[in-house]
């Protein structure tokens, strides 16, 4: 076995409130495909960002060809021959494929771009990745798989020896995956070292040589690519659920929210479930499984093709947030800053945004009533603030989230959809939000909770729905839901889709 071309030793990295990486060791040899797996938030992204120069380690070292190296910028990584293909492509859609391939360093002649040479070189590069298309084509007209190959060709143009691919198969169809794997095999034979991140465990024996499993910012184990899937899943999720989830199950009452056969082509298909009064129904699944899409569609924020949504047995019109709000539905969106709050408005204004029309007479808002109500709910939720006039931008993440939840409490919503309710929130505020969830179900509210935090799903849900590739892969009662059973369902459906 040859010498490692890239080695990471004892690397640690902290962000405010989060230990993203802790004592991570990782290495890559020429001509191997090293697969990196782990749950969302396990630290894979932070690790590859470190290798591509976006982050610097707080401690530990990175060695390139045995020599300690500081990768301080993307151009430094490029100079070292390390290229990264992110899920979001770095292509300029309005430019031609050839221009993108040689972005920033087009071949020149007498100071002008040498179009002929650019075309010739682009054709060669496209040929190397097995892409047969006109280099003059506008990049925005390409399909996802083609754009991905253009990205790889761009990396080859820079003589990359290390290629890092972040979930490259997530967006591809079966045939496209086969072509990508054939290309990866050719690159491996040419001595390129490849770091391959995937959620699709069944791909590992096909494409990988070795696997490294990450969890909670640490490397928890390594295995040959032929290791059984069950072994990998156990490594990925094998942590105990602590007492930080104080779920007190309430008695389930009548169904408040019913979703029947909800379908939108390309996003989700035939999703049916119900949520009863007093229940917390968790929705687990990998990123991209369609959980947020279903939540937004049933709330009326996005359209759907077929199926129906009933609240208290009454059908809800599609695509009408206002009607959803009136019927008692509330959404705490995934990204509270861009979707949940008016950041430059004050707390009172944000808390009262849903209930603007309540108590209004002839179009005039009830100012005194709104202020009193905001004051009451802010007190009830324990929002730490200097006063109702404080701008929400200046609040901490946990307090901002309380304001988003508070606006629906003021509206007396009976069904709350919480999309990643504790993302980016410190531990103390998390527990407060869990206690709030308990109080809400105790008083007969129904909660649909989407979360990528598996312990949170297991700790707080009375039932767990698992989505995979836009479908409901299964439903587990709290007693039967374990990290293994949920993860197995979450990665299910991928075999059929891929092999």
């Amino acid at each position, binding site marked *: 076995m040859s010498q490692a071309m890239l080695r990471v030793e004892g690397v640690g990295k902290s962000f405010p409130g989060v230990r993203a990486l802790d004592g991570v060791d990782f290495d890559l040899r020429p001509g191997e495909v090293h697969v990196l797996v782990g749950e969302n938030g396990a630290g894979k992204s932070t690790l590859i960002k470190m290798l591509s120069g976006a982050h610097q380690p707080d401690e530990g070292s990175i060695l390139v060809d045995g020599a300690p190296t500081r990768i301080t910028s993307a151009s430094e990584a490029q100079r070292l021959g390390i290229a990264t293909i992110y899920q979001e492509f770095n292509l300029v859609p309005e430019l031609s494929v050839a221009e993108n391939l040689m972005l920033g360093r087009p071949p020149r002649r007498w100071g002008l771009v040498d179009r002929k040479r650019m075309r010739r070189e682009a054709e060669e590069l496209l040929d190397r990745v097995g892409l047969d298309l006109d280099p003059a084509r506008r990049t925005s007209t390409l399909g996802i798989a083609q754009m991905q190959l253009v990205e790889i060709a761009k990396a080859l143009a820079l003589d990359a020896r290390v290629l890092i691919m972040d979930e490259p198969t997530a967006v591809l169809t079966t045939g496209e995956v086969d072509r990508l794997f054939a290309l990866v095999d050719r690159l491996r034979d040419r001595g390129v070292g490849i770091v391959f991140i995937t959620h699709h465990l069944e791909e590992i024996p096909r494409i990988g040589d070795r696997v490294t499993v990450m969890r909670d910012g640490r490397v928890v184990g390594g295995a040959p690519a032929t290791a059984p899937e069950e072994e990998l899943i156990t490594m990925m999720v094998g942590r105990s659920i602590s007492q930080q989830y104080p779920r007190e199950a309430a008695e389930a009452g009548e169904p408040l929210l019913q979703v029947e056969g909800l379908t939108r082509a390309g996003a989700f298909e035939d999703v049916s479930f119900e949520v009863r009064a007093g229940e917390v129904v968790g929705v687990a699944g990998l990123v991209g499984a369609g959980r947020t899409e279903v939540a937004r569609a049933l709330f009326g924020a996005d359209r759907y093709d077929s199926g129906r949504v009933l609240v208290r047995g009454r059908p809800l019109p599609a695509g009408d947030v206002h009607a959803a709000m009136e019927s008692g539905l509330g959404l705490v969106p995934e990204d509270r800053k861009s979707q949940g709050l008016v950041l430059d408005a004050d707390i009172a204004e944000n808390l009262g945004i849903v209930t603007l029309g309540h108590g*209004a007479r002839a179009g005039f808002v009830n100012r005194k009533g709104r202020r009193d109500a905001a004051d009451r709910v802010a007190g009830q939720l324990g929002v730490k603030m200097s006063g109702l006039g404080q701008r929400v931008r200046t609040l901490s993440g946990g307090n901002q989230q309380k304001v988003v939840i508070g606006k629906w409490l003021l509206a007396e919503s009976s069904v709350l959809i919480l999309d990643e309710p504790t993302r980016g929130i410190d531990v103390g505020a998390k527990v407060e939000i869990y206690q709030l969830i308990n109080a809400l179900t105790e008083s007969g509210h129904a909660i649909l909770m989407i979360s990528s935090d598996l312990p949170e799903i297991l700790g707080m849900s009375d039932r767990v729905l698992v989505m995979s590739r836009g479908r409901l892969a299964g439903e587990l009662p709290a007693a039967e839901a374990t990290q293994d059973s949920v993860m197995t369902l979450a990665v299910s459906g991928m075999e059929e889709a891929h092999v």
Partner: protein
Amino acid sequence: MSEATLVGAAKRPSKITAWAAENGAVIGLIVLVAVLAVMSEDFLNPTNLLNVGVQAAVIAILALGATFVIVTAGIDLSVGSVAALSAIVLGVMSAEFGLPWPLALLMALATGIVCGLASAGLIAYGKLPPFIATLAMLGIARGLALVVSDGSPIAMPDAIASLGGNIGAYLPIPLLIMLGMGALAAVILSRTYSGRAMYAIGGNEEAARLSGIRVTRQKFVAYALSGGFAAVGGIVLASRLASAQPQAGTGYELDAIAAVVIGGASLSGGKGTAFGTLIGAFILAVLRNGLNLLSVSAFWQQVVIGVVIILAVLLDTLRRKASV
């Protein structure tokens, strides 16, 4: 001021400093008036001051309308043209069709509102950027004003023309109309469902939508109000000239937007008040009047006004940075 007091002020601002920080335009107007009072002895003459008020009135009314739209993070470039078209409709309806003036007045108002609704429709359903939709409306309304009037002025009925005069010896009616429209705009923006919804939409349209606010409907309200206010502005302008002129109000949209911005609104939305806009319009009018009294050439006046716009927005940006 010593550093200690500065720190103290930052920690617990008194009501006065807090108010001053939120109303920079008022301070600007006071300073401007003080400087002009010293530099020109005619400036504080009551006749001159009332004259400034009358000069400010039309721009102020257009700017108040534009404030609704700007608060929603939109823009309305058509207010000057819509003002002219509405006045022409009033003239044609009463002079050529012999309609009684109150009815003609209502039709003029309706013209402004319809123009606003048309812009809003293009924005909401045609997905045109507000800049483009209202730029098109600027051309269309001006063109229609020329077509309907055949390019020549139309006399106003006496009842309308008298609106350009005074109550008693002194009180100019345009000034009263402006104050009335200012009060109306203030009430709509601060007290009504639509007004508050406009701030939410301008602050974060997606959050407003996901909170059940009917964003499209409220945008229609904002643009319709802008059109309606433009019509009133056009009628006031025509009453002062005693005739509706198809070329009246050309370029007023830019003065109106300048007044809104000087008054503290942000073109990125969510911010701005009727009071601030009135002050902004007054700053422009006082500046023009003062520069005239000081015999500054009309050419230089434009430069000065440009600099004032820059200063107003620059100071606002700096102040906001300091407060974060």
